[in-house]
């Protein structure tokens, strides 16, 4: 083990190298590019015994990774934002084909207007595809998740592809110390490649021809069942990883100051760091707020959230994305889990297009919510827009002002 100072993207590259990936195929997009650059360098300099396919589009990037994986080798790709949307069709195809594969998604806003900064709209758009979707909080977790992702994806109980999300620029381009395990440690922790089938002259198999409706139905059912089984696999992999490398994160969610909390901030990604600071500050002024950080958006941490909410007066869900005309995606999943019952809930939309959200924002929104709950008894507000006061003087030409009740 060695501590290296790495950007999130270079942590991805290190993890891919350590996982002995054989085929990398990728197409550049900001802010994913430095992953591809580093992997190209590793492969050209023979630091990695692998092939790099420098494809002409993201659609092809995932298709080529799928072809390689179907031929029996470990494959990897990485993308972001529009690149992820462009490959969306293949995202579905890989999951339906049950081909184990890992992809890093450097989360970024979607245009128009062009915006290269972080939000989660791109990765949230993939929720229904049958991929396991993980999100990292920091660069260390990025490295750990990518290595774990191969083990989860290639577990015979799962055999589904895995996306590892890391926030654009906040993680991808920010350097932090990362414990990088030795090659031999990872070699003995990560089993050799396993997959449900290989397409080759030896097997003579056909994948993807037309299936009768009922068979199709059952294949979809099996994907859902695999996703359900993945919950246990993810938790066990997290514990097992901790035993070997000294870091476990808590499975599908990471709970911070949750034990005695009355209120929870529920979110995913790097801004959890700011939420945790806010939770600490809240304690100082007498409010017990915990942070439940969603590490896996799929499979959804249903049991964990039910357990938490049974003791909570209120839940604040922070979404860095929205399903227009409905709510933030984490909110809708949370509401469907908790039911629109006695627990107070608010769905906060914040940080779109990289708008900075600080501990101060988390604290002020939370306190306002708590005040309302204490006063009104029960609050249910599915969509609440938060644009920090301090950034508003940056606005040159507002399309429209925020409504009353939003902040």
């Amino acid at each position, binding site marked *: 083990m060695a501590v290296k100072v790495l950007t999130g993207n270079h942590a991805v590259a290190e993890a891919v190298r350590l996982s002995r990936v054989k085929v990398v195929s990728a197409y550049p997009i900001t802010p994913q590019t430095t992953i591809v650059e580093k992997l190209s360098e590793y492969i050209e300099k023979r630091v990695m015994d692998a092939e790099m396919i420098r494809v002409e589009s993201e659609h092809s990037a995932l298709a080529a990774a799928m072809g390689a994986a179907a031929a029996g080798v470990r494959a990897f790709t990485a993308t972001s934002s529009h690149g992820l949307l462009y490959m969306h069709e293949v995202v579905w195809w890989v999951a339906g084909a049950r081909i184990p594969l890992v992809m890093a998604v450097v989360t970024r806003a979607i245009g128009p207007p062009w915006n290269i900064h972080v939000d989660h709209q791109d990765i949230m758009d993939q929720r229904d595809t049958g991929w396991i979707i993980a999100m990292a909080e920091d660069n260390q977790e990025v490295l750990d998740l990518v290595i774990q992702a191969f083990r989860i994806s290639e577990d015979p109980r799962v055999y589904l592809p895995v996306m590892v999300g890391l926030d654009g620029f906040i993680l991808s381009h920010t350097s932090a110390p990362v414990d990088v395990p030795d090659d031999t440690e990872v070699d003995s922790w990560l089993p050799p490649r396993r997959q449900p089938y290989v397409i080759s002259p030896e097997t003579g198999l056909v994948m993807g*021809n*037309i299936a009768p409706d009922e068979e199709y139905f059952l294949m979809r059912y099996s994907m859902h069942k695999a996703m359900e089984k993945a919950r246990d696999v993810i938790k066990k992999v997290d514990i097992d990883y901790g035993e070997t490398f000294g870091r476990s994160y808590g499975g599908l969610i990471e709970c911070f100051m949750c034990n005695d909390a009355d209120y929870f901030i529920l979110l995913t990604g790097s801004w959890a760091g700011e939420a945790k600071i806010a939770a600490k500050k809240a304690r100082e002024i007498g409010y017990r707020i915990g942070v439940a950080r969603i590490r896996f958006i799929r499979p959804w941490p249903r049991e964990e959230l039910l357990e938490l909410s049974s003791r909570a007066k209120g839940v604040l869900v922070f979404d860095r994305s929205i399903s227009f005309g409905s709510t933030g995606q984490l909110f809708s999943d949370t509401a469907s889990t908790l039911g629109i019952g006695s627990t107070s809930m608010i769905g906060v939309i914040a940080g779109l297009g990289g708008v900075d959200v600080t501990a101060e924002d988390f604290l002020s929104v939370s306190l306002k919510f708590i005040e309302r709950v204490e006063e009104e008894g029960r609050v249910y507000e599915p969509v609440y827009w938060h644009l920090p006061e301090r950034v508003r003087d940056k606005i040159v030409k507002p399309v429209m002002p925020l409504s009353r009740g939003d902040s």
Partner: protein
Amino acid sequence: MMAVRLKELPRRRYGQPGNAACPGCPETMGLRYLKMALGDDAVLVVPASCISVIQGIYPRSGINFPILNTVFAAAASTAAGMSAGFRLRGMDNVKVVVYAGDGGTADIGLQAISGAAERNDDILYICVDNEAYMNTGIQRSSATPYGAWTTTTVTGKTEQKKNVPLILISHGVPYVATASVGYPLDFIEKVRKASQIKGFKYIHLLAPCPIGWRFDPSLTAKMAQLAVKTGFFPLYEYYKGKLTISPPSRPFRDPKRRTPLIEYLKLQGRYRHILNDPNALKRIEEYIDEQWRWLNLLESTNGH
């Protein structure tokens, strides 16, 4: 390269009874010839196309090939990845072959092919050209010829057929050829030759479709020969920078020896509305001249 002889070809049945092809289907003819040419070391990559259907219904398959079906626009890149995968596993003997339609090649798949060709990925790409989107019910593609009726060009297509082989020649790939299901030995020879070459190989296989072209299903082979004999679809190969007109097409370099175009067109219902339109017929003649002008031009650069 030894010429292929009929009696040396394997006698195994490759297209199984019960596959889902229409009567007179040229694509299953092509698949049989492909298997005869390559034996058992090939894996097919198939994008959305008639072949998606023809191969049969899960859990069975009517075609003796291992197949990875893939999305419409990414056959070439899927194959490129597979080829890398086999290479890294030390299975260099496995030939990765794309078998795609003209829509999946000339239209939606063109970007992926161009990428694979430019990278010189080690795959054999076969475009089975039935000159329209037949699987969705006869809609025009960029490979539909001028004048042809389709359900989206009900008064006849107003543009000429896109020339994909020329596009690939311009990529500088090691091997490009045209072939016709009417000349199986020529096609088999080309497949065998291509499969011995490292890098990106492309064969454009003309596949007259009785349903889409509106002709009697017993005439598929004849139609595929008439396309060559009229000079409409010249057979050639481009290898190591040298263009060679293939034997079946050689007599028809001379326009006087060609079968009159009308003999080809009048058998196809899709041209019925232009058979008495001299201007339309002239445009098809011009297309043929244009094909040969390109070929003569390329041939004249041989050895330079």
